[in-house]
């Protein structure tokens, strides 16, 4: 299935409101992979549907990335189906003040560590995750380094030294 067909299928199934934005593939001047921006609270249902439905059968979560966009925290899902050999990219946005996204670890086991990594480095809270703890950094670490406003622990000292 092409990205557009999947988009139409989702719109048919979950209604117009569930999908906030749909970007089709860009051109040379705008190199952009197509994606579908979902409403946060529909994410779990959509993912379950995409995995279980015969027409889509997305059995693999290839990558899950957290991104701090200027307005919100994005969580990006790259899905792949071995049955149909097709891709889709889903996105959800979480507010800056309380970044919270439903977990998909119960749908794809691969999400477990990816969500922990995203929580660790960006501080996105994946609700319903079985064990949302830090994975790359130590448990006592403060802050989330991939946030744009993160200050390195050595920041003040380096400034003193003139760097």
């Amino acid at each position, binding site marked *: 299935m092409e990205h557009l067909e999947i988009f139409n299928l989702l719109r048919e199934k979950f209604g117009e409101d569930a999908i906030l934005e749909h970007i089709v593939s860009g051109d040379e001047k705008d190199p952009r992979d197509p994606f579908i921006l979902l409403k946060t609270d529909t994410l779990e249902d959509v993912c379950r549907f995409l995995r279980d439905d015969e027409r889509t059968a997305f059995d693999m979560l290839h990558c899950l990335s957290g991104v701090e966009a200027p307005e919100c925290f994005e969580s990006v899902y790259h899905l792949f189906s071995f049955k149909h050999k097709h891709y889709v990219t889903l996105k959800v946005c979480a507010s800056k003040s309380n970044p919270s996204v439903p977990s998909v670890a119960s749908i794809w086991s691969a999400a477990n560590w*990816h969500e922990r990594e995203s929580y660790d480095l960006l501080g996105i809270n994946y609700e319903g995750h079985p064990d949302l703890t830090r994975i790359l950094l130590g448990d006592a670490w403060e802050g989330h380094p991939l946030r744009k406003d993160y200050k390195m622990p050595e920041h003040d000292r380096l400034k003193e030294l003139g760097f």
Partner: protein
Amino acid sequence: MATAAQPKPLQGEPMTVFMGPQHPSTHGVLQVKLYTDGEIVNRAIPNIGFLHRCKEKIGESLEYQAYLPYTDRMDYLGAMNNNWTWALAVEKLCGIEVPERAEYIRVFVGELNRIASHILLLATFGLDMGAWTPLLHCFREREQILDILEELSGGRLCFGYVVPGGVNQDMTPRAMELAKKFIAQFPARLDSLNQLLSFNQIFIKRTANVAIVPREMAIDYGFTGPMLRASGVDWDMRRDETYSIYNKFDFEIPVGEGLKGTVGDCWDRYYQRILEMYQSIKILEQVIEGFPEEGQHKGKVPARLKPPKGGEVYVRTECPRGELGFYMVSDGSNTPYRMKVRGPSFCNLSILEELTKDMFIADLVATLGSFDLVLGEVDR
């Protein structure tokens, strides 16, 4: 058919043991927390992050081209393939064309590096299972590959060779000579290594029917590369989602068959790499045969790359350990807004806790060995 012995609980005093981060069979700085009952592991929890170097954060503060050396040090045993994947992502984001000769050189170094990486698995996995001799043979072979890659790039482990737009240095006649010599003798050497290790009864007893990963489980946990194919999934990025010039070459994709036990056991994962090395040789022969006489090794690339605002790409390729993915977002400046690395070892390792329930400690070593982990890529 050999079947692995079923562990019986001792019901003695449970004990918590830390395996690693300084342990030879964790292949780097991996720590596994073992809850044991005698020889049996009830639960094994991997603890990663000892080698975390904030690669993604560094990626956000460096110009596009300057990130090259950092990609080498993720999967340091498949550095060429890492360079290549990163270069592909930058090229896609910035719309850079690659000359044909450069594509040939990329496949050439990529496949050589794949063999170098797989042969190291053969060596270390044998070592984990108590076979010392194959290691010496494997390093002799690997040395020849490193000589070729050194001739081209100047480096022996971290190459920094594949750059956006092509490769750093042109192919040299000496590298071509060395490669021809290597290709001519390697399959026979691999055959003898097979006799030495792969079909060795002791080795088979240690690895067949151990840590079986069924097809569905492999996909669910995001397995890729040789690990996925060993579980019986016929999928290879080079053939099915072809990139560069892989569509010009004729090669087969071996899939795990459970020759000595069950599909997706440790032996299958090991033998998968052996079979892939034969195919890499097949590709290399065709690369050398069809190598363009003339042409550029690097296309025109602006000194400063500035991809358009809002650009975002996800590129994945077939690396020795699986599919490496780069997710790059641009905000129109000369540094990426976000650079996420999807390391294959990271996803492969996440299965460990579920896979090693009620297993002998010795089998856990076999399991970890068959994963072919590189912790530089797990921790990034």
